[in-house]
């Protein structure tokens, strides 16, 4: 609140701010201590803690120390860092933690009640048995009240909308069995089902926890990859001073000072300066576009070359990025109509089970055993048919499969994505950034001498131009060290020039022709052309063949011109549609869906976002824009395209396993239900049947471990 506070003024007891950064480059203990100690040496940093598993660092610092400065500081320590948004996933993580706590409580209850039950089963009589039943009740009731909440809440929700899901029969079973067991205990009856009830809750919670952990793990990986739009901007105040303002506080009419290398936080019009802008986040097109006074620039783009002043025209929810986000939201609505396999099974399962239990009650009443005995039998039916194995069947298979995929560089956001992926029967591919690498790759660096390479690297490193970055990346990869150059000048739209040992050297204006670009490296009088091309991803052709064999014919759908798309389509031998705007992509997908096809969309750019959301299921490469990764169900991190085919294959294997698991669960019911109906199921038999069937289902799911081979 005090604009005069300076960085050196460390005595201010301002509230500390927390920021998180993704640092994918850390690999060893040395990196941990280097980052933590290096950051602590920075004035204004209170604490820095590395999380090695997620490759993130959390920093607690003075609010004056902006995230950009911290990012630069991490950069100076030798690590590339990305700013992460205010932990958007903490809510979801909280969910899994709650489930895990419930699981722990259920586990505690289950073990203690089992101890007591074993002695009852082995013949404890009279007072001992009653005492043990009472003790069981004492443990079971708080445990059921605590650990059963997730089921009760979800069942209540379903019933409120007059629908039913897996949790309805579970909740009814739990409540009836608990109530009856209490009655049995109070009247010194022979059987109490507390052990069965708590065990049921334990197994079911295990399934939920697995499901939640899978989701969290993948989302964490994805959030670590996120490239963020600017969290704020330097706003020029009326008195001429600048002040860091958060993106949500920026309003139309304000003046932004945007330094070279910064991302824009809002849409606006340039009023001073000219510069090249990287629009790749919006268009997927990496070529920089020059913008000068009175030109419009958009939030999410990067200012590459020179500082500019921008008058904000739209901020926050009104920016172009937000418009696309809205389009995506609408396109994504239909996804919520996908019914998870487990819930689809529950639709038939729940009424069948309830009917069966009711029939058992009525039947035994008619047989004249009295209401108590009849109720006991129908509760036994409910417990034995409770979808223990069914509740584990789906998540166990999906967790093992997503773990397998993760080891192969594929992050699956949730189990429903695997289910939808297995159903896909058509592939639509974006071109730039998806089937191609999305950034130019230099083709003929081998023609340069060692000296020329080191000069080229030094020049390339002093520029933010995508072509310079591409050249620098390849040369660093070849272990070239940069030459010493002086008086570096970068002219927008022209290139970089400098002096090397008194000779003038330059990397000058790339000329664009066809789908390849080039740049001129000049050392003194000698010029060398470096040709760059946006190359196809490795294994693209093989992936398309594999997908075709799996029954998914592919076609290209690109926003690029016909001339750029045709050669790629010919090379891959697939159909292509060019000049497609984001709306056109959505329309194409809707048309195919209307014909009954389940479309798998593979895309990366912001312009693909709505299509990714509209498709039945979608995949994005790890190099994709922020929006692309958010919208996609699956993200693959490798350069190669093969993970696309692999994930379809694994998803199908997973669904096969899920069906086997359902088969096993049903087979178990076919054996156990007649026993329960005939009144022969004691708590002991229920306990054995439940744990055996659950173990078998989990064991079957574990076979998916090697599914990616």
């Amino acid at each position, binding site marked *: 609140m005090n604009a005069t506070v300076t960085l050196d003024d460390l005595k201010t007891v301002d509230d500390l701010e927390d920021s998180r950064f993704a640092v994918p480059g850390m690999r*060893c*203990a*040395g990196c*941990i*201590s280097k980052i933590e*100690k290096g950051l*602590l*040496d920075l004035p204004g940093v*209170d*604490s820095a803690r*590395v*999380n*090695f*598993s*997620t490759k993130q660092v959390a920093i607690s610092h003075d609010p004056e120390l902006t995230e950009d400065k911290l990012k630069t500081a991490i950069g100076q320590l030798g690590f590339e860092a990305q700013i992460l948004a205010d932990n958007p996933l903490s809510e979801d993580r909280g969910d899994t*933690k709650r489930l*895990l*706590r419930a699981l*722990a*409580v259920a586990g*505690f209850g289950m*073990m*203690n009640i089992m*101890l007591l039950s074993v002695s009852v089963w082995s013949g404890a009589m009279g007072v*001992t048995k009653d*005492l043990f039943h009472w*003790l069981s009740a004492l*443990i079971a009731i708080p445990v059921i009240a605590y650990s059963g909440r997730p089921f009760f809440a979800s069942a209540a929700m379903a019933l409120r909308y007059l629908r039913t899901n897996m949790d309805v029969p579970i909740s009814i079973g739990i409540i009836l069995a608990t109530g009856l067991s209490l009655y049995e205990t109070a009247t010194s009856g022979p059987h109490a089902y507390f052990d069965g009830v708590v065990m049921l809750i334990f197994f079911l919670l295990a399934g939920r926890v697995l499901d939640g952990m899978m989701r969290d793990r993948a989302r964490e990986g994805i959030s670590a990859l996120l490239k963020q739009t600017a969290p704020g901007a330097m706003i020029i105040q009326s008195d001429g001073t600048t002040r860091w303002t958060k993106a949500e506080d920026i309003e139309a009419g304000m003046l932004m000072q945007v330094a070279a290398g910064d991302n824009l936080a809002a849409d606006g019009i340039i009023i001073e300066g000219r510069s090249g802008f990287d629009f790749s986040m919006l268009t997927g097109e990496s070529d920089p576009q020059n913008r000068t006074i009175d030109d419009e620039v958009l939030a999410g783009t990067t200012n590459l070359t020179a500082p500019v002043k921008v008058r904000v025209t739209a901020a926050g929810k009104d920016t172009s990025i937000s418009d696309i986000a809205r389009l995506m939201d609408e396109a994504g609505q239909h996804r919520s109509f996908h019914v998870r396999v487990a819930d689809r099974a529950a639709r038939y399962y729940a009424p069948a089970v309830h009917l069966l239990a009711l029939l058992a009650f009525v039947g035994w009443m008619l047989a004249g055993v009295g209401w108590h005995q009849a109720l006991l039998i129908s509760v036994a039916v409910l417990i034995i048919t409770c979808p223990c194995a069914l509740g584990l069947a789906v998540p166990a298979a999906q967790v093992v499969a997503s773990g397998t995929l993760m080891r192969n560089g594929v992050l699956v956001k949730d189990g429903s994505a695997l289910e939808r992926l297995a159903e896909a029967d058509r592939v639509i591919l974006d071109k730039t950034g998806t089937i191609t690498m999305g950034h130019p790759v230099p083709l003929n660096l081998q023609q340069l001498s060692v000296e020329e390479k080191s000069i080229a690297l030094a020049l390339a490193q002093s520029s933010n131009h995508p072509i310079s970055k591409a050249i620098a990346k390849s040369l660093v990869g070849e272990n070239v060290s940069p030459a010493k150059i002086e008086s570096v000048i970068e002219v927008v739209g022209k290139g970089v020039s400098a002096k090397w040992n008194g000779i003038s050297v330059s990397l000058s204006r790339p000329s664009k022709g066809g789908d390849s670009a080039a740049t001129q490296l000049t050392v003194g009088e000698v010029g060398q052309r470096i040709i760059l091309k946006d190359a196809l991803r490795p294994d693209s052709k093989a992936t398309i063949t594999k997908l075709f064999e799996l029954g998914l014919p592919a076609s290209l759908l690109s926003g690029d011109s016909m001339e750029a798309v045709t050669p790629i389509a010919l090379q891959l031998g697939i159909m292509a549609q060019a000049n497609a705007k984001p709306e056109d992509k959505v329309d194409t997908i809707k048309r195919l869906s209307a014909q009954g096809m389940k479309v798998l969309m593979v895309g990366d750019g912001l312009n693909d976002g709505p299509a990714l959301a509209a498709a039945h299921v979608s995949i994005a490469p790890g190099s994709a824009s922020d929006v692309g990764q958010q919208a996609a169900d699956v993200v693959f991190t490798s350069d190669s395209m093969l993970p696309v085919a692999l994930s379809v294959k694994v998803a199908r294997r997973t669904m096969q396993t899920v069906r086997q698991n359902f088969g096993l669960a049903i087979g178990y019911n076919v054996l156990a239900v007649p026993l329960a109906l005939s009144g022969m199921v004691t708590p002991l038999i229920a306990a054995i049947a439940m744990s055996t069937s659950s173990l078998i289902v989990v064991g079957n799911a574990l076979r998916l471990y090697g599914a990616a081979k």
Partner: protein
Amino acid sequence: MSGLAVLIPVALFMGLCGLGFFFWAMRNDQFEDLEGASHRVLIDDEEVIPDDKTV
């Protein structure tokens, strides 16, 4: 029977201790960075800890 009066509370108490310990561990983020912990062992302590950093 009299043994049970001691043993059952003891068993329950020990179980509750384990449960409490697990809750404590979760609340203290003990499971947040499992890989990092194995690496941190290898970090050498600095001989002199700078005074100004012991916040």
